[in-house]
């Protein structure tokens, strides 16, 4: 704390689109109790606040990639490739883009595109843990949502979220650890975010390219 004086702020500037104050937050995890979301620094050095970024993500999705500096897989925002003028222009068209996506997918509440499926056995005669990684096309998913999976529309329940490409084995122990009340009340993923859903189902058969639909 040395070096800071009483009354110092952490303000880095203002959002180039809406004027919100930019204050960096410590982590960008899925489990964010009522937080506003992290800002992103644009190509020209201006900032975009978490609220504006959330609106843009349906067109400029988030991706998890290896970060050579932190030596870990970290979330990257494709909106960071825009400059302030482009971001403002895209924001004014973001709602129309969302509506066109909703129309394309038949006006379902929320749609998720499957990109990777990982199965882990959980014991003799027990249903396997299935971790499905991909992107939310639009809408919001919560743990315990029941969703129609794949072309056949098989209904299955999301039992938890995992950090995409987290590398942790999903098993009884880790699930128990992930089950604080925050997981139920304050966890969600919005349109454009990369996410990993955990299912526990014997009959679920998903493959990359399938969609998960919530109604």
């Amino acid at each position, binding site marked *: *704390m040395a070096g*800071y*004086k*009483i*009354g*110092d*702020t*952490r*303000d880095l500037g203002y959002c180039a689109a809406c004027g*919100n*104050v930019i*204050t960096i*937050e410590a982590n960008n995890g899925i489990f964010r*109790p*009522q*937080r*506003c*979301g992290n800002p992103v620094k644009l190509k020209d050095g201006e900032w975009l606040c978490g*609220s504006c970024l*959330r*609106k843009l993500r349906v067109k400029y999705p988030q991706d998890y990639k290896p970060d050579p500096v932190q030596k870990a897989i970290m979330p990257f925002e494709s909106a960071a490739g825009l400059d302030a003028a482009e971001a403002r222009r895209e924001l004014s068209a*973001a*709602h129309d883009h*969302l*509506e066109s996506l*909703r*129309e394309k997918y038949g*006006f379902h*509440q*929320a749609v998720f595109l499957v990109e990777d499926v990982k199965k882990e056995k959980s014991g003799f005669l027990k249903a396997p843990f299935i971790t499905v990684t991909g992107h939310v096309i*639009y*809408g*919001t998913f*919560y743990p*315990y949502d029941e969703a129609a999976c794949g072309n056949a529309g098989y209904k299955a329940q999301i039992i938890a979220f995992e950090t995409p490409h987290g590398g942790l084995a999903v098993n009884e122990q880790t699930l128990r650890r992930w089950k604080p*009340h*925050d997981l*139920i*009340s*304050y966890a*969600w993923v*919005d*349109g454009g975010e990369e996410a990993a859903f955990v299912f526990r189902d014997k009959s679920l058969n998903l493959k990359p390219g399938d969609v998960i639909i*919530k109604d």
Partner: protein
Amino acid sequence: MEKTQGNKVCAACGRAIEESGVYSGPMEIFDGPKDVLLSDGGAVCRECAEKVRIVRPLKNSRMFLESAAHFGTFESKTGAKHDNRGWINVLIDPIAELDTEGFRRVQSEAESAASALSERFAGARGAAEADFTYRRFTKDRSMDTPLGANEKRFVTCVKVLFGEIRPGDVVTVAHKEREYTAKVEDVWYWNYLDIPVRPIEKASAGTTAALWFYNDVPFIYPGDILMVKEGQ
């Protein structure tokens, strides 16, 4: 009768400024609208201050402060007790930085902003832009699974753009295929960097608020405009 702040009166409407409930620096928790002392010694009452929030909203920031409640205390070598220091989310009122002349300018800015928005939201008593929606499921005062929850709440955090939103209002969200409606059961002040902190009577233009619904609102997406139509 409420004691007044010296002999100060509101620079805009002439109402007496109360001794208590005057903004006195960065607030950690929003505890209702406050009268504001201006930089030149003038003052404005809370009603007049709320009218200009459309152009001068409370500013959210993270500030380095002393706080025993957050960080505890320590005893120095002399035996004196001090509060520890750290970073806290605070609300700063930008009106306090204005002088009386500046406030009058902001008043006219606010009036023109409100009239421009009343054209944009014709037929609406209030309008807000949705940010995100989260769930709050509780059972017997503790969190539980959705299956066992006996109290299911859906909270949409919004920025009020125009007019005001009160508990009991019905908000309308227009999408390509149809219009959806939902009843706002409760309105809380939402500290943008933090959590919805407390119920408020109404959320007026320029306020960040949390709208509580008793039913799921999956039709509210980030960036959607929630309108309270006249007569609803």
